[in-house]
């Protein structure tokens, strides 16, 4: 553990260097998250005709731009990376290293965060410059909660994706699961449509799933849809609990997976 912590700054630096080396790919990759923009176009036209259930076009602009920022800032591709490394057997190299493989993955993806922040900066500028600025939170309690929620969303997404990637130890085609996961995530996180606009039973179900803490909750805090500071911090607490729980599950699954793993091409 201490060894992993000592190595982490170096691993992050390597991650950053890798991300810079493949910067063009990252930009194109970020551009593929067009779904919030398409939904933004759709819902602003709808809200221009008449507000949709008390959501005006300004609310939709703020919501989807914030969703775009949160998604690109907190997402990573560690699930695909792990699945691919297990499939091809390159994970063997990682297992030989003296630190836990998760530390290596953490470094790679944490190191890419500065570049992600740089890439979403234009979206943030547009958001702040637009009329949607009026709904953004400004008081210190909410802003502090927002920062904590963004960190938590990153940690939660990382834990969940590590868990999904680890499935490759047990399944032949984990990609199908990841595809299904994305569909579920898009609905229950509020990525596709703001959760308050979905039917009551979907919202009730979403309360019991981790997905809204990955996207919908940070966005709700950012655009002032949380009643007060205490409620915002309660969301953050639940989010961190999910992150810790899922990381634990992923770690246990990883160790069981490694035990049944037989390297390909040995």
């Amino acid at each position, binding site marked *: 553990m201490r060894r992993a912590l000592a190595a982490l700054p170096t691993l992050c630096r390597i991650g950053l260097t890798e991300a810079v080396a493949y910067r063009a*790919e990252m930009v*194109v*990759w970020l*551009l*593929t*998250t*067009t*779904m919030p923009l*398409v*939904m933004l*176009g*759709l819902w*602003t*036209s*709808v809200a*221009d*005709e008449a507000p*949709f*259930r008390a959501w005006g076009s300004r609310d939709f602009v703020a919501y989807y731009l914030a969703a775009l920022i949160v998604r690109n800032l907190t997402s990573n591709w560690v699930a695909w990376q792990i699945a691919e490394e297990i499939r091809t057997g390159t994970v063997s190299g990682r297992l030989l290293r003296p630190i836990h493989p998760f530390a290596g993955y953490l470094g790679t993806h944490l190191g890419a965060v500065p570049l992600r922040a740089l890439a979403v900066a234009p979206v943030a500028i547009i958001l702040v410059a637009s009329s949607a600025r009026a709904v953004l939170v400004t008081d210190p309690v909410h802003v502090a909660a927002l920062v904590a929620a963004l960190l938590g969303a990153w940690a939660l997404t990382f834990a969940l994706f590590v868990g999904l990637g680890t499935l490759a130890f047990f399944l032949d085609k984990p990609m*199908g699961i990841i*595809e*299904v996961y994305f*569909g579920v995530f*898009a*609905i229950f996180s509020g990525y*596709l*449509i703001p959760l308050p*606009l*979905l*039917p009551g039973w979907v919202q009730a179900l979403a309360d019991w799933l981790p997905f809204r803490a990955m996207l919908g909750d940070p966005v709700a805090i950012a655009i002032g849809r949380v009643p007060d500071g205490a409620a915002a911090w309660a969301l953050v607490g639940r989010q961190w609990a999910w992150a810790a729980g899922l990381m634990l599950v992923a770690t246990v699954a990883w160790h069981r997976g490694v035990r049944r793993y037989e390297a390909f091409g040995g």
Partner: protein
Amino acid sequence: MASPSTATPASPASPAAARPRRRLPYYAGLLAVQLRTSLTTAMQYRADFLVQGAMSLYWLGWNLVPLLVLFDHRASVAGWSFEAALVVMANFVILRGILEGAINPSLGAVVEQIRSGAFDYTLLRPADAQFLVSTARFAPWRALDVLGGLALLVYALVRLGHVPDLGQLAAGLVLLGAGLVLMYALWLIVVAAAFWVVRLDNLAFLLSSVFDAARWPAAVFRGTWRVIFTFVLPLAVITTMPAEALLGRLDLTTGLAAVAGAAVAAAIARAIWRLALRNYTSASS
């Protein structure tokens, strides 16, 4: 789809040996062989049929969520009722099924070939390279998506109480074909780009994620989106116009312009592809 008439790929081998034959039956036979190979491969993984079927249903239902949420509180959006928007959605599902079944797998494979150098062998074969590349691989189970889309289309038309007459049906089919040609042309241009920019999976993802916007009637988008989706990426042509034709709302001039546009796009894509072939420098040697 590929016109086998005028091609002379810049083959590394002697031009005479690689000169493509020009007979239609030859290409029809070739297509049959390629199809049979894909089908045989697919039949080896019969369990995938169930998985794919379940996935088709899953995404079909998923696609309907925003539509249901929106029209639960609105009778119409930008002049489109729920049922009419459902016709557009059905077109989208059908078209995407065809794209992912017949076009994306082949063209995705060629990008890998260019990277590894295996594309040399494609160029050496005595047939048009564009034809070979476009028909290399099929994903037969995607037919389930197409079936789901057709069911959705029938359901929407029944709910509307609208039976398209023969002219509307023909116009809808022709325009759906034009939309397919247009998407194929865009895909071919993206693949041609792979000759210069090798890592390209991302670009393909970009194209399909933008194509996702075609599930909505073009009229619901305004301002910047309208401009992008009409002129930059003509999504309106791809799914909205066939729906309008089926519903009998499309005037003849617009329809003909869309078909002409698709033909022009195909010609441009072909030209870019041939330009790219001339610039091909093998990766293997």
